[in-house]
């Protein structure tokens, strides 16, 4: 596997999955504070 593909994979997965968990975390904190 090429190095550029590995870097792209890490960036894409971090962006999409990281984004999802970031927003779920935000929603969780909001629910908890209510």
């Amino acid at each position, binding site marked *: *596997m*090429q190095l*550029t*593909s*590995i870097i*792209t*994979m890490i960036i*894409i*997965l971090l*962006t*999409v*999955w990281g*984004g*999802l968990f970031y*927003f*779920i975390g*935000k*929603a969780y904190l*909001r*629910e908890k504070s*209510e």
Partner: protein
Amino acid sequence: MEKVERFSSRWALLLAALGMAIGAGNIWRFPRLAGQYGGAFLIPWIIFLFLWSIPLLMVEFSLGRKTRKGVIGTFSGVMGPRYAWMGGFVALCTMAIMFYYSVVTGWALRYFLVAITGKLSVMDHGRAWQQFITSNQPIFFHLVALLIGSFIIYRGISQGLEKANRILLPTLIFLLIVGIFRALTLPNAAVGLDYFFNIRTEHLLDYKVWLEGLSQSAWSTGAGWGLILTYSVYMREKEDIVLNSFITGFGNNSASLLAGLAIIPTLFSLMPTLEAAEEALRVGNDGLSFIVIPQLFNQLPGSAFFSSVFFLGLSLAALSSLIAMLELSTRIVMDFGFSRKKALPWVAGVTALLGLPSAVSYKVFQNQDWVWGLGLILSGSFFTFMVIRFGVLKFRKEFINVVKGDLTAGKWFDVVVKYLIPIEALTLIVWWLYRSMEWNPQGWYNPLQTDSLGTCIFQWVLAIGLLLLLNGMIVKKLHRKRA
């Protein structure tokens, strides 16, 4: 008077929204395109999440919460009675998709049942697929899928939708993770990963790849279909529109990546040559799912298990989207004054009947998929038209940024909805219609051709003409119910 139904929590709403968004397209369309174009496809696919899907999800979430009506009632209420037909088109488009989507769900269920009995491993898959779709079996399985979906919707929001999505979505994610473990432990799985994530300059500079990325984002998240609007009719008053839209959009894309990681390495690992793998990605959605993938699993020890995992995942993804479409239709009938228990049998009956042509004829299925799939882009642009006519800034202030302390939509929303989405919608419609002329250089105008420009325009004009003709009657019946 019927009790007002509500989702019990934000998580229940989000599970339902994700179940709606994550459908067959995530499993059979995304990996096909991502394998073909690699990382160059993923870039526009992510960009258009922000420039198409999430803003439209925000529009739908906020409309449902504010109006507490289905799509027709919402268009009539926000734009005025003269525009009820626009809501009618959105509804008709999604319902037309529901008619054949029930058939697709039935295909997946049937293949799952064959897979768990172990019979899938001894088939000649190309021939078996042809024999299956030309037999009467798709009718039976279409009715089975519809019966399951209708049973869920009949039980209502908390007892039906909520409970079903609590099982469907986590099971689907678990199955995808099982698939990824198998895929990544195959020899040469890295070749598939390389195809999946490698950004090739010629693809990145190809406008077609960008338009495919936009198309996938538009179709896959379910934004502009009226489904999220329908679910948000049942959302609690105090919900964060922007946050929910981001979770739905990112959740849908996350599931697509899981499906890609399970399918693309498997394909590139088990196909005899790279050319054969590339060829397999071009065979079409159902060809990949029902012919190529079962053939590949045959080469693995425990093939019955992995085929069952794949087809159960496909069935659950399709079912969780089918129930959203059934709820959209049921909600519309309920807006005319019927109870859920009375509305659902009508919706199920009509779906059973109008799904039959696609169950009987594969050409009809392809035709409907082409006409109403592209119709969804028109549906999305109708939502945008509504917001522009209402005033984008006013809409943002009165519909989205309402609850204090929530995430707010900024000025970027105005720019995207007012300028970018109309341009994107127009570009997509013109591009896909132009492509259909290339597919049918001789008969592109012929309304009887399966995927011609003529059939698309003919059916759209017929639908809009009928809806315009019935607009007055629809509005009268809606208002009579309200009175």
